[in-house]
């Protein structure tokens, strides 16, 4: 198993043992819905509430040999370094464009990442919106979205996608990509 996947396995175990709702987002979720492209960035979104939840998350991470490098409840993300493997993972407390509510969590899907390793993956619709809502959105993000739209086709819940895209203010961009 690769170092990155090994780290991911330990993080998922940590979240599940501590009943922290999570989901894989970004480049590691893409191959489930769209094109296949290489990336080293591992993004996870976690749902925690309040300072107590935040402190509990940090303590759990440190206990499992993950060192948070940037950590403030005011920051949308925490970057953690796996002291055992030397890899980095981005843990998002407020992922771009994603309204981390019950519906988002309900729409996650469980996917196999490897032998004896399954994880919650962001829904295809929330994946699209989070890609488009990135403040530093680039051509690659738009290509990722296009690939998901093409591969998922009629499988997408258009009503939900429209609702979330509107909430995130990216409806027009979505329309333009769909039309291209």
């Amino acid at each position, binding site marked *: 198993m*690769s170092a990155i996947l090994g780290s991911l396995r330990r993080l998922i175990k940590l979240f599940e043992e501590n009943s922290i709702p999570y989901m894989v987002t970004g480049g590691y979720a893409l191959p489930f819905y769209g094109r*296949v492209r290489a990336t*080293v960035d591992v993004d996870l979104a976690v749902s925690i509430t309040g300072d107590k939840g935040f402190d509990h998350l940090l303590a759990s991470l440190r206990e499992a040999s993950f060192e948070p490098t940037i950590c403030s409840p005011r920051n949308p993300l925490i970057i953690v370094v796996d002291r055992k493997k030397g890899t980095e993972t981005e843990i998002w407390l407020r992922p771009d464009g994603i309204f981390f509510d019950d519906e988002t969590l309900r729409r996650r899907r469980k996917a196999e990442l490897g032998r004896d390793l399954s994880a919650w993956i962001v829904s295809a619709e929330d994946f699209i919106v989070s890609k488009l809502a990135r403040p530093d959105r680039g051509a690659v993000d*738009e290509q990722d979205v296009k690939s998901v739209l093409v591969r998922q086709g009629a499988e997408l819940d258009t009503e939900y*996608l429209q609702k979330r895209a509107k909430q995130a203010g990216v409806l027009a961009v979505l329309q333009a990509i769909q*039309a*291209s």
Partner: protein
Amino acid sequence: MLKYQFLHFFLVISFLKGNKMSLEQKAQILQAAAATTSGVRDLVETLNWKTSNVVSLLREMSNERLIEMQQATPSKPGRPKKYIVPTLLGLELLEAYGKMKILPLRARKEDLERAAKDALYACRLAANGHSTFQIFLELNAIVRNIRVSSQAH
């Protein structure tokens, strides 16, 4: 506000259904009808499309309340002429379509076309029983090896 919500909904549903061509055509009809008083025959001449296509689109657009057929006051004997008039919703759609057309994307058209092709390849891989996530891990490993070997030289 509700009207705009409907408009956005209409645009999204049209796009997501892959109805791009039809949307473009509807926008062209709205543009032509807004520019001058037009009957069906006038539109067919202006747009240079098949009459059956124009009639079918007009029927659809009327159902969607994008246009209204208004009857002209007859000045001479015979069947009174009907004119196509865009509704307020139709005009808003036209405006939104115009804005959308000029919306700047970071990706070029060919980048998005390439992404669509890659997506279809991923579909074929999955259809042939491959796990696209495993292929992704393999690709990552290849890229990593190339980086390591290029750094070693």
